[in-house]
């Protein structure tokens, strides 16, 4: 009978050997030009909406997670360009002060930030700054909430109470092509620290901000424009392999 734990140790050793081989083949190069990795982290989205006179509609941000695949190309020792294919969760939480209505919308985006990377520090530990722009696509959303209906509770009405019935819902969001703008673009920036574990292996931590410049709603009202924007901050941890 084969020992599973031995298999795991064996495969781990293989991976380590492979990584060391990768490192040794290019260790003497002055600079690693291509870097590819994975990153993941927590994000929090701020939904910017002007509710105007509907003063008891209160919008709060909501948290989510993000994962991405960064690809980096070093031009100079301190300058690189980077693109991350990123899955991001955005959305909002809305509730009313007037009644029990609430709505939580979880939006899922696929984004492609294109950034310049400015690095500073020594060979082992480097601080970095990312600046650039991103384009994205609103993939889908999930809605959870509760809304007032026209149904009422007979006994409550007979007791001279309001008796209104609120219905909960938990469903996929239906896009309205006239209203919803699924194209997303904006500015992106981040700061972080990168640590070279091995000559060919880096780990990094980053705080990043996606600043949307496209409204989540289309400009479908000529004389009463009401754009809504997302600003998403993310805390990311990642690992990169240098080629």
């Amino acid at each position: 009978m084969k020992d599973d734990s031995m298999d795991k140790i064996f495969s781990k050793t293989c991976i380590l050997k492979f990584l060391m081989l990768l490192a040794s083949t290019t260790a003497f190069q002055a600079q690693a030009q291509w870097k590819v990795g994975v990153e993941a982290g927590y994000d929090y989205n701020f939904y910017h909406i002007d509710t105007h006179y509907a003063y008891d509609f209160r919008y709060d941000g909501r948290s989510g997670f993000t994962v991405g695949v960064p690809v980096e190309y070093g031009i100079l020792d301190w300058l690189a360009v980077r693109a991350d294919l990123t899955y991001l969760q955005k959305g909002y939480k809305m509730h009313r002060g007037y009644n029990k209505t609430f709505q939580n919308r979880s939006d899922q985006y696929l984004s492609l930030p294109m950034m310049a990377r400015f690095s500073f520090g020594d060979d082992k530990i480097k601080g970095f700054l990312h600046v650039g722009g991103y384009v994205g696509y609103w993939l889908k959303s999930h809605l959870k909430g509760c809304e007032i209906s026209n149904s009422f509770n007979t006994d409550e009405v007979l007791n001279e109470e309001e008796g209104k019935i609120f219905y909960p819902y938990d469903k996929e969001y239906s896009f309205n092509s006239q209203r919803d703008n699924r194209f997303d673009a904006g500015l992106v920036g981040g700061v972080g620290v990168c640590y070279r574990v091995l000559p060919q292996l880096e780990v990094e931590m980053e705080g990043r901000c996606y600043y949307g410049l496209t409204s989540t709603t289309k400009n479908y009202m000529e004389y009463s424009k009401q754009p809504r924007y997302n600003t998403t901050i993310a805390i990311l941890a990642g690992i990169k392999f240098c080629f």
Partner: protein
Amino acid sequence: MIKKQLFKICLLISVLMIFSSCRDSGDDLIDPSHYPQTETMTGQFEAIWHGINQNYVFWEIDSIDWDEVYTKYHHRFEYLDEQETVKTEDLQKLYEEICGGLIDNHMVIILENLKAGPDEKNTYVVVNPGKLKVEKRDDLQANIPINNFVECYNKLKDDGRIEHGAGFYDGESTGGLESMFTFVVDEDILYLKPASFYVMASLGNPDAYRVYDTYIRQLLFNDNIKNVIIDLRDNGGGMLWDNITILGPLLKEPCHLLDSKTKVGTGRLDYGEWTPFIAEPTTQRQIGKLMEWKDELPDALCMADQKLVVLVNRYSGSMAEITSMGAKNLPYATVIGEQTYGATGPLTDNTHVSFSGEFGDKNLKSATYYVKTSTWLARTVAGTFVEGEGVLPDIKVTLDSEKLTNEHIDNQLEYAIDFLHEK
């Protein structure tokens, strides 16, 4: 070297800050209920246009290009403002052109002609898009005057077909109910004709109480009653709560009347989610409580195995239509008559519910205009929109006006009686 990098970083941050101002701040919106008072026709048009823009709930299904309306008509009002006087008749036509095509059949736009000449007797414009549409229907008939109905009622009485009759129609209108009749016809059919859905609100009126008390006692305690006819012809609707008095006692289980949704924002398409409008059966105990009867009744259904017919016509509007929409979903009910009015979106005068619906001043004092409009967009349980169209009856029977006037025979009612007796 470091200085150079710092310079570049500062430059980039500056560029970012410039870009960050690229977000559009949007237009300022004013609550249509608090739009500033205006003395110009342009200002009045703007207030009405913006109010409908923000408070109307049918944008999802209304094909009117509302922005185009503003572009097209704004300069016409600027032109009118330059005139000494404007004929009310001309202003009426202009607003009918602007709002007459909106599909909300509950809608009424009332405004004062701010430039009426000294000789003008009528200085008010009233546009009712629903009425304009109904009047264009091919088979339009006038509504049935209540006196004609009373003559039919008397004929049935003279023929010995009626017992347990009660009614009022010439008393004071209390709580919005102008008339109500009930009787048992041909021994086993219980009939109720409320003029509106203000029965519950009118029970403080002795006439209304007496008629409803007679009706509901027959339903609950007369074992001969095998069928019920609810006559909602010429019934323009009223309170949703009247489900308790009209449809509720005739239900054996909860009845899904329609689905409705309203706005959750100030944008034209800022809709919330669909919610069901479900009528609960009114139990005998609840009826006893409503009528303040001394003896407490059991928590049992009012309806046994009776069949139900709902009579409707062109002037059955709002709750009368909503009730017929519900009845169409009941296996033991049949809707007979004509296509209804087409005002199915529920409404409330409490605009705070969703910052939608009516705005302006009914009395034309704090504002020179008033717009009544639905608070909810509604669709049938099957997902069909009937706003502006009306509910089609299960069996179409057109009123024979000549027979009604000359022979005092209500052919729609007679058809319903024969239908229930399977003749």
